[in-house]
């Protein structure tokens, strides 16, 4: 039971405050003054004014938010009893990828989720594109989802028609894991929960929203969701974009924020804006998502990867390195992640030779971790 749910809901949706102002306030009361959100709401107006330097408008907003606490408690009870969860930005469960991509300026104060929240800790890619994408874009989406699933990367998508839906369905098909980022409040996703029931309870799909739980679908919300999709992903793949619309503005926004964005290099006869995005700084990739250098060369034969395929040993070492996600792993988990059918002994002797791996014992079980890393307990909001 998350006792402070009503407080977080009230705080996260302060009207027209924007993420930065809300996050700054959270940093101040939670990290600097070490008080809970509940205690913060109990403070006197004088205290808000003097300790937190809030102006009259802000204080009046907070008073309004405070008066909505009872209503939000009713909502929160209904919300939590149905298995939805709230992850505030101060929680260790909050997506680190999202936080480091969006920073205090754009990170939402809370995530509304349902499903396996451990997925938020995994490596992730986003696949985005038009609602009315071409067959080739959908095939590309399917292929990228397949490759990601093989590598245990989570596929983030936006649950729109076309590319989004393809990304989700392909990932499910390849037994991968997905995050659905909703363009609406999470409690209005009724039929979606019915359709993806099995995947959700099996832990393969996480549904996530940053909007007020009861907010219905709106075009503005669909736009506002795009940065969340980008933020949740380590890598971003664009299957197809037209010259306006959600995908376009999402990519442009991403490029402006300095994200590296992979765009499928279009065939000559394709009518879309992929090429324009590439000219604007996006990175062209082939059908398998590999980076291409010669952007304007239409002949496949000339295409060469920027990154040379590393030889086998190097490749395995780097795979081992990236298998870790801040927590120690058992031999069994490592074998699954690396997709190896070695014996435990073989893996053990191999790992011992790697100087960047250390072994720790926990309850008589050998756990492997990257040297020098500790189990990350976040002490500050943004690292």
């Amino acid at each position, binding site marked *: *039971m998350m*006792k402070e*749910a*009503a*407080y977080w809901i009230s705080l996260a949706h302060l009207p027209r405050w924007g993420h930065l102002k809300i996050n700054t306030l959270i940093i101040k009361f939670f990290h600097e003054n070490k008080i809970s959100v*509940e205690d913060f*709401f*109990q403070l006197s107006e004088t205290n808000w004014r003097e300790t937190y330097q809030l102006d009259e408008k802000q204080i009046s907003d907070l008073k309004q938010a*405070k*008066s*909505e*606490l*009872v*209503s*939000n*408690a*009713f*909502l*929160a*009870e*209904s919300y*939590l*009893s*149905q*298995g939805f969860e709230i992850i505030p930005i101060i929680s260790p469960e909050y997506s680190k990828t999202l936080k480091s991509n969006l920073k205090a300026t754009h990170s939402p104060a809370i995530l509304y989720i349902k499903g*396996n929240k451990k997925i938020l800790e995994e490596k992730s890619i986003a696949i985005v594109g038009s609602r009315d994408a071409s067959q080739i874009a959908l095939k590309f989406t399917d292929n990228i989802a397949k490759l990601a699933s093989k590598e245990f990367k989570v596929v983030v998508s936006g649950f729109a028609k076309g590319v989004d839906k393809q990304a989700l369905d392909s990932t499910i098909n390849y037994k991968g894991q997905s995050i659905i980022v909703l363009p609406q409040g999470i409690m209005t996703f*009724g*039929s979606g*929960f*019915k359709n993806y*029931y*099995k995947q*959700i*309870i*099996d*832990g393969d799909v996480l549904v996530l929203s940053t909007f007020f739980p*009861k907010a219905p679908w709106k075009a503005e919300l669909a736009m506002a969701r795009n940065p969340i999709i980008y933020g949740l992903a380590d890598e971003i793949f664009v299957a197809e974009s037209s010259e306006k619309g959600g995908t376009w503005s999402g990519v442009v926004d991403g490029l402006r924020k300095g994200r590296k964005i992979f765009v499928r290099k279009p065939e000559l006869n394709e009518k879309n804006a992929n090429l324009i995005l590439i000219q604007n700084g996006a990175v062209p990739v082939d059908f398998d998502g590999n980076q291409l250098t010669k952007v304007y060369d239409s002949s496949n034969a000339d295409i060469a990867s920027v990154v040379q395929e590393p030889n086998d040993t190097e490749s395995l070492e780097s795979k081992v390195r990236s298998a870790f996600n801040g927590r120690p792993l058992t031999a069994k988990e490592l074998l699954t992640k690396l997709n190896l059918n070695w014996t435990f002994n073989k893996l053990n002797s191999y790992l011992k030779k790697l100087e960047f791996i250390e072994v720790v014992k926990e309850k008589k079980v050998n756990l492997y971790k990257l040297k020098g890393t500790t189990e990350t307990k976040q002490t500050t909001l943004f690292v």
Partner: protein
Amino acid sequence: MTRQEAELILQRTFKLRKFYDEQWLTIDKILKSEKVLLIEKTGFGKSLCFQFPATVFKGITVIFSPLIALMRDQVKKLTSLGISARCINSEQTAEENTQVINEAKQGKIKILYIAPERQENNEWIDATQQMNLSMVVIDEAHCISVWGHDFRPAFKRIINLVKLLPKGLPVLATTATATKRVEQDVAQQIGSNITTIRGNLMRDNFKLFVIKVSSEDEKLIWLGKNLDKLPGSGILYTGTRVDTEIYSKWFEHLKISSTAYNAGLDADSRIAIENGLMANKWKCIVSTNALGMGIDKPDIRFIIHTQIPQSPIHYYQEIGRAGRDGQPSYIILFYNSEDRKLPEAFIEGGRPAIKKYDNVIDAIKLELLGERDLMKRTNLKQNQIRVIKADLIEQGIIREVMIGESKKYEFVPNSQPLNTKAFEELRNVKMQYLENMIEYVETTKSRMNFLCDYLGDNSNQTFTNCDNTGEKKIIVSITPDWIEKLQNFREDYFPELEVEAKGSKIVNGVAASYYGASNVGAALHRSKYEKGGDFPDFLLKLVLKAFRKKYGQEKFDLVVYVPPTSSGDLVKNFAVKVAQVLKFPISHNLQKSRQTKEQKVFENRFLKTDNVSGAFTFVTPNDIKGKSILLVDDIFDSGATVKEIGKLLTNFGAIKIAPIIIARTVGGDLV
């Protein structure tokens, strides 16, 4: 606000002069935004402890109450005082409820009563977003505790709600019935910073009697002789729904005014009976324990139990409805040593077999299911499904979710396996409670002291208000004339079959007997399953008698009978005889249009309905048009078959379909 100031408002608004000390103690804390658990006996004036602050607060006070009758009653009273109070409940139409919700959003309501189940309703949750709420009240708070006499799963969510409420919102939980154990459980669940205020629960205006008998006949005869001699009007509680019918028919036979009540009645009938109770329309209402909670009638003069309740706390709760005016009231309990079997069966049968829990879990793991689908997938009775669901939700194995407007159940990933130890523990405690109830029967000391001690009252008072301490013991004497009266009644009493439905010309029918109540069931079983040949003639006699009683000299145009599933021509041969004696023509044209299974295989009415849905046809529909039809069958259980045939014959133009059945089962889908 000082007490003096508050009492000035009290006089103006409630037309009452003063608070009792314990009332003010509570109200003072509520006005200071504290949390209080208030345990006071029925009639103390608990409601004022939230109604008064509610009129002072700016916003709305929401009262969660499981008792619709109480909601109605209190709303009526508050309205007459000019206080804007409303309720939202399942007996009002959706439009009425929406209207109330709109008024609440506009701030036109001070006091709003709702059932705890409302927290599952989206319209309600959405509406709370626009309400200014000042206080939350949990009435009948013992329902929070599994150790109480009336645990209700929906209260679990109210507890969660209270934990989510912001600091500084006043919360009041009230009950009239809580042992120390329940008190502590409730207080602990509501959480820290709660003050418990407990008054004493004794009722010295009660006259407590236990009548020991050695048969059901002795109960019927004593009541037949003495019910009219008791002062005023009151309630007779029986153990089962069937007994409410038998006892009330017995009184009808003796011309003692009574009516039967149970939770299975429709809302209109229930309201009519509750109003009749208030107006002393009958000497006695014969009821299951569904009646009376929350009914604010000050002068219920007697409460009689023909069956021991499961525990002293159940008993205290039920007798607490008598004598609120402080005038003497008779509290009588019949006890036959056989009687412990019924509560034992309730306790033992309260939980379905573990295998059934596993079936439910497996079904929900595969699919998101509603209650109805779940019953169909698992072939479980509705009441069993409900027990299982509540337990699985309680243990965090499944949860209830809303998909649009429909309620579904989903599996909770990574949940713990079913913990059956908890069931064992609860069962043992309940068995202990039953032993305590029997101790009440057997005690030779003051019965009032026994109850007070049991409830945790620290009272050293001496009572002289029971058959151990000053009142005369009641002994039943059986005389031949009464044995004969009872015999006559038994031969003249036939169970009613309630099958009437909108859009169907079927009328309520009659059965010759209850299946298990006499030798009827055994005779049917011999013929059906032991190759005993045709149904014996005494069944024919009984059926004809039932026919005369129910339908008198009425003529029917046609006799039809339900075609068999597996027992050959038994019903056909029987129907032929019935038709011969009554001199009505018979038709053999009601037939199966597809194979069905025996209805008894199915545990719930949905599957029974599915099994027979569209399963019949009448090969010469013209024979039916404009006709009145007598429909014969051997056993009546859920009524699904008869209703289905009723629909079919209605479609073919029948003007009346009247069922006559040899035996009706007891304890079908809904006990």
